[in-house]
């Protein structure tokens, strides 16, 4: 009797706690999940995006995706952007965290400064850097803007992403570093381990959960990047910075191929899900319990 009452009480507590998620769940469902579900049937039609008539074409859109060279090029560019962003944001974020994770007023101020770019909107970050590349870097150092080069544009856009996201990574890493027991470092010191050995043998394994979180998040952000190329280059020069998200956008809104663009979006969402799940699972295996 006491046991049943206790279970019922716990169930009510869980329900009450869950109810506070309802507003966010409501918004997520109606603005993300529902439009996504509504979009799936569109991918089986030939549709220009605004006419009332649609033509059923079955799997044709999906089949055409795999032979579309411009889409495959956009995928490659997206992967290049993502790789650069994930690696550099994490490396720089971790490096800064290692330097300034200790409690002190000065480190606190530095943490705020390094985190500030993350507060800037994506579009504003793109505009700021487009200005910096051309009106500062080129004017004073004579280095042409990477955003105007078909070779360097992806690197140029990645730099914007790294500038913005490294601060976020830093915050996560600082929290993880502070949770590493000091006994481990004392033991390592006694054993005579050097800095590098200590980092790879103790620090990195202990903060692996933070690495997983950052890598997974930045991987997802990078794969769906839209704002930077849209605001800074509009996919140019030519289509040298056209990412998958921008390609989908162009198909739906500029090429009058809403059905095809929807199919690309659906397939790409599936691809992102598979990739991020695989990476997360692989990295989770390396985490240790503290």
């Amino acid at each position: 009797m006491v046991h049943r009452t206790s279970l019922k009480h716990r169930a009510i507590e869980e329900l009450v706690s869950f109810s506070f998620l309802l507003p966010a769940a409501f918004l997520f469902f109606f603005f993300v999940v529902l439009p996504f579900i509504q979009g799936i049937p569109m991918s089986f039609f030939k549709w220009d995006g605004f006419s009332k008539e649609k033509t059923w074409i079955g799997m044709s859109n999906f089949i055409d995706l795999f032979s579309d060279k411009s889409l495959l090029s956009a995928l490659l560019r997206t992967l290049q952007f993502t790789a650069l962003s994930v690696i550099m944001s994490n490396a720089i974020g971790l490096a800064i965290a290692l330097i300034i994770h200790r409690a002190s007023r000065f480190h606190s101020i530095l943490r705020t400064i390094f985190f500030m770019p993350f507060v800037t909107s994506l579009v504003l970050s793109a505009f700021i850097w487009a200005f910096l590349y051309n009106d500062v870097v080129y004017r004073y150092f004579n280095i042409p803007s990477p955003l105007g080069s078909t070779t360097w544009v992806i690197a140029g856009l990645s730099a914007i992403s790294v500038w913005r996201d490294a601060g976020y990574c830093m915050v996560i890493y600082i929290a993880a570093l502070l949770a590493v027991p000091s006994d481990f470092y004392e033991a390592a010191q006694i054993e005579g381990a050097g800095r590098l050995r200590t980092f790879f043998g103790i620090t990195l394994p202990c903060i692996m959960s933070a690495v997983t979180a950052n890598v997974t998040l930045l991987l997802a952000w990078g794969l769906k990047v839209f704002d930077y190329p849209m605001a800074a280059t509009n996919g140019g020069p030519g289509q040298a910075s056209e990412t998958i998200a921008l390609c989908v956008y162009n198909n739906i809104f500029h090429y009058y191929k809403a059905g095809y663009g929807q199919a690309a979006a659906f397939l790409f969402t599936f691809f992102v899900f598979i990739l991020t799940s695989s990476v997360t699972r692989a990295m989770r295996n390396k985490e240790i319990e503290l």
Partner: protein
Amino acid sequence: MKGYQKVLGTLVLGCVIVTAAAASGKNENQAVTKPAAQKVTILHYMGEASKNDGLAALVKEITGKNPNSSYEVEGVAYSQYTGILKTRIAADDAPDLFTGWPNQYTELIRAGQVLDLSEKPYMKRLIPWLADEARVNGKLYGFPLDIQLYGTFYNKDVFDKYGLKVPKTLDEYLAICETLMANKVYPFVRSYKNANFPWVEYTCFAYPMLCQSEATKSILWSSIAEKKTKFKDHPLFAESLRLYDKLLKYTEPGDFGMDSATGINKLASGERAMTMDGGWIVGDLYKANPKGRFGFFPTPWSNDPAKNLASTGLDDVFMVYAKTKNIEGVDKFLEGLASNANTNIWMEKAKMISSIAGAPVPKENAVQLDFSTLLTDNRTIQRSRLIEFSGEYRQKMRANIQLFAALPAEKRKDIDKFIQDLDAEFAQIK
């Protein structure tokens, strides 16, 4: 007590959500009131400050004469314009009036989203050949506000400083570029950050070139879009790219990050000598330097002066949403645009040439006078001789011309490879 607090908190939260949802709905129980003035929504992509000023002045004037109509104007960036327009049409929230060239929105016209204006009385005031530019399948789908000329705009003070004269031939044009480079002045302003700029620049010489050739005029783009021919089947297209390559030799590397406003300022101030662009820059050029001395000439592509014509076409065209509920307000607006008084307002503010037959040309503006002289002397050629690309073809053509401009000089030399890649890309378009 803790349990009660949680339940109470949940109930309060639930009430807030329900109230918010209810408040966002329409109140059906309002008393019936007198119908409000017709509100006509206008969506446009005019990025130039002078044109925005001109449009605001026109709206003020037309509203003043039509108190039963009000006009809500919304401007969006050109790069996002088509997406926003299509989204609003699909969402049944289309603007009553929107800017655009009918031949570039043929999909909208075919889907019955654009009103046929052929029988409207104000359309008869238009210059006939210009009205023809707004026809699709013989019907008029847009009201052009002005005539656009494409060619080279130059700073007369810079030309005077280096003893340069307006070129009549390609060799003279290239000689001017060499003289300026020798004096460490980059000849051209190239606002390559604007994705549309390379295409406009290219068409300043390519359209007169292609439109005068029997081999390419009227069929070049349309035969490619219909998959009857490829780019490699048209040698004159390759010639136009070779000429573009020659002119790109005079590009300052920093221009790839330069936006239109900065570019106009550089020309206005005399930091650069010329730009190949459309007449929409004239208003902003004079706004940047009201005392500036500017001129215009057709971009020479040939050493035969008679062949060097300025291409003309549409610029600001108003189209009407086919299902507009405010047709009275729309008609009043377009009638207003066609009136002499408002024509003068537009020409004065935006520094354009009016689309209305018989409208006088302002004499104080040198560029407008150059435009007028070229039109009067028949030294122009209509761009509509080449049926434009639309949809994906249009976007990809612009992207590829931008790509050509951005390529390193050594890669640009391989025109055949570029055309081969272009054909492969266009073959994929369905």
